[in-house]
């Protein structure tokens, strides 16, 4: 049964061989003339302006939390939109409760100033 996959294995080995061959041969035969520009860290052709590890404003996490609130809302509301006729009254009540809980979280965040960007 595994025999059917043999060509894939062969293909894989050839791919590995070519990749390794090209890298090894070019590192053996290729000329090396280092300049300042070549030794500098690559930053998409821009002048390097500093280390990559920098401080990021922590207020992004509030945005992430807001996102979760609405993400969860969408996750439940789309399927609900498809079946809400079948679920009828009880479904409406259940979604109402869900929405209420969601709103509590949202109102809390709002009041805490999550929507202000300074």
């Amino acid at each position, binding site marked *: 049964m595994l025999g059917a996959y043999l060509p894939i294995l062969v293909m894989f080995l050839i791919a590995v061989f070519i990749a390794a061959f090209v890298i090894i041969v070019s590192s053996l035969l290729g000329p090396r003339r280092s300049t300042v520009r070549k030794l500098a860290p690559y930053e998409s052709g821009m002048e390097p302006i500093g280390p990559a590890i920098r401080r990021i404003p922590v207020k992004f996490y509030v945005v992430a939390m807001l996102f979760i609130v609405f993400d969860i809302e969408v996750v439940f509301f789309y399927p609900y939109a498809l*079946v809400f006729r*079948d*679920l009828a009254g*009880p*479904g409406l009540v259940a979604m109402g409760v869900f929405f209420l*809980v969601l709103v*509590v979280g949202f*109102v*809390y965040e709002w*009041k805490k100033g999550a929507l202000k960007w300074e």
Partner: protein
Amino acid sequence: MEPLQIPPVNLILLAPLLTVVGWASALLLVDVFLIPEGKKKLTGYLAIAGLLVAGLVGLPLWNVSGSTFSGMLVLDRYSLSLTWIFVIVGALSIAMALDYLPRHGIEQGEFYPLIMFAVAGMILLAQGTDLIVLFLGIEALSITLYILTGFAYPRLTSEEAAMKYLVLGAFAAGFFVYGIALVYGATGTTSLAGIAEFLGRQTLVAEDQTLLLAGAGMVLIAFSFKTALVPFHMWTPDVYEGSPTPVAAFMSVGTKGAALAALLRVLAFAFEGVQAYWLPVLAALAAITMVVGNLGALGQTNVKRMLAYSSIGHAGYILLGIMVASERGAEAFLFYLLAYALTNLGAFGVVIALEQQGESVWSIEDFAGLYQRRPMLAVAMALFMFSLAGVPPTAGFMAKFFIFTAAYEGGLGWLALVGVITSAIAAYFYLRVVVKMFMQEPAREVQPELNRGLNADIIIAGVATLLIGLVPTPFIFLAQQSLVALGG
């Protein structure tokens, strides 16, 4: 398309849980909109009131039982008794925090609703009869605790504790979910009753049970992390030391109790059929937990770390009850949980009283000569230490006696022996505190600060510790009644 069937839902059975969740949600908004800065204590009082109301709502349900949400949640006397214990734990923890938070400059109103949400998670753990619901309960409890652990931000130890707890907690959650998946693969259900039924049908020899056992093992590992059983206990001392002391107190009894309560249901109910497999594993876990927990506490000079190790040791004792749950173990478990919870909350209360502003060292030296300065406080602490050590006539003695007897009758005599020996070792470090308080001169002046909330906590815990120790009969009766199976 077939019409969707909505399973019948009986919300009455969830009354205490819903009360806590609803009250906490409302309180969250009340806190931001109505309660001004600096008056956040009011939020705390409202949270305590909410927990007490939830406890009272549970009272008329004593003779009610049943399951709802397609058998995912159940209300029985076992879960109701646990609910009461958790409500008491939550209320006492909040009482401790009322003055602790402003004193350490970390007062924020969210603290109190968060404790309530954690209690809701614990109640969910007590009522859940489906692995998914149990997972939900564990997560609801854990996520709130991650925040509470880091509540003393920007104190470094608190942040470190939160980080450690978060990483290990997430790790444990991964184990839990993977375990559930494997169990589902093996049995085709996540409901505890369904698993039990599957195992009842199956003869173990005939079927390959690798999947099931691997899944059960992973679930057990996750529970071990949450309840800090050795060798999954490494995080405990650091987290307890770093987190705000009321949170540490809450964790040491609440999280542990809830997770162990759920573990009891999972093992004794769902996996009863494979008892032959988990019993030796659990016995080994219990034995090393008792030994390592109590030996670890021996060398501690930091009282908070000592209490952390002591809580590890106590989890080992409680595990004895879980192993013989089908016999009298479940009663012993409930009784031990109640006694241990009250005693430990009291002990942490005394630690808070001695804790000074902005200090991160809880040296045992601070207890030296406490008797001369604050005799009542010293006596209370001595009482809690005696109870934790298991010296009569305190609650701890009755609880240990009860649980060792149950273990012995359940055929785990050697474990009971390990328990007794480690209790004797434990007496050393508990009594060291007592000796310091009564027989030594103070090394430095530490002014204990007491206030209403803390006083209430220590008095309630002290009275309860003595009462359960001196008149255990009603409490034992209550524990027995909790396990009487009701019709339906």
